């Protein structure tokens, strides 16, 4: 294991754990909020560590981005009063 990749995984897992505990502590009950925070953490850690991957394309990043976009779309729709 390379030091940089290990640090990347440890940082990702630590931040996911801390954010889950923090959001639970303030009484957050919306799963979309947790997932949105995870997505932001993932992209922030990927930008900081720039880990090399076995596959050239970041499929996880694309999937998380799509999920994030759907969550944002639902939020915007609810603010505008549109029923989806």
């Amino acid at each position, binding site marked *: *294991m*390379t*030091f*940089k*990749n290990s640090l*990347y*995984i440890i940082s*990702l*897992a630590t931040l*996911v*754990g801390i*954010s*889950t*505990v923090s*959001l*639970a502590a303030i009484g*957050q*009950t*919306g*799963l979309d909020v*947790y*997932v949105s925070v*995870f997505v932001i953490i*993932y992209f922030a850690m990927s930008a900081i560590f720039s*880990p*090399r*991957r*076995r*596959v*050239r394309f*970041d*499929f*996880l990043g694309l999937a*998380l981005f799509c999920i994030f976009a759907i969550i944002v779309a639902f939020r915007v729709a609810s603010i505008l009063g549109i029923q989806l």
Partner: protein
Amino acid sequence: MASYQHLGLALLAFGAVVSATSFFVLQSVPLTALGLGAIMVGIASAMLPPTSVPSSLVKEMLQNSATNIEAILEEFNVKGRALYLPPRDGRVTAFISIEDKPVLEVASSGEVPLRVLSMAGGSRGVTVFPPGSELPKSQDSYRETTYEDLLRSVLVDASELADSVKITSQGDIEVVEIKSAKVVPRLPKFDACLGSLPSSVAASALAYKTNSRVSIEGEERYGDSRIILTLRRYPGSVAE
């Protein structure tokens, strides 16, 4: 399978069980989120490249190899600059003329015999396997398509000889910026003939990737760890 993949699969399985149980049985949102987080970290871990040999060990082996080559160069009192030759049986070799002759004379010569002492382009010289001669071959599984990708996997991931590399191409010239390079001290002959250890590995990787002869045109060091390396390819040269 490497450790990252084991860790990734374990986290993926753990996350799937926790999130499904928490969502359908316990109906707990924080625990469901924790499971989803574990799945995300698991997939991220599984996507990392496998490293069967610890990079610190690879770095030590490269440094030991450089020390051995230093002893050979000292013994033959070699004064020339190295010409990195295309891979033969997947291994890059380097020809170093004993006299201080221009690399171009050797680069335009015919096939260089694979012997310790040999003649090429009218020059007597030494042929050695540079420290990173086989490293690029071991990185093939990562499906690198560019020289920068290959060099990053060799110098940064596999051997930890540098923190980052950046390449600018200008025709047959490749300018490589190596940041936080780990240079082996007290190897004067090696540094003079083959370049510093990270530069030598970079030249070997370019010879491997482009299947052409390569020489180090210039190597400038800024501070302790930043190297600007200028490599020249000789694409029309004879394949080994």
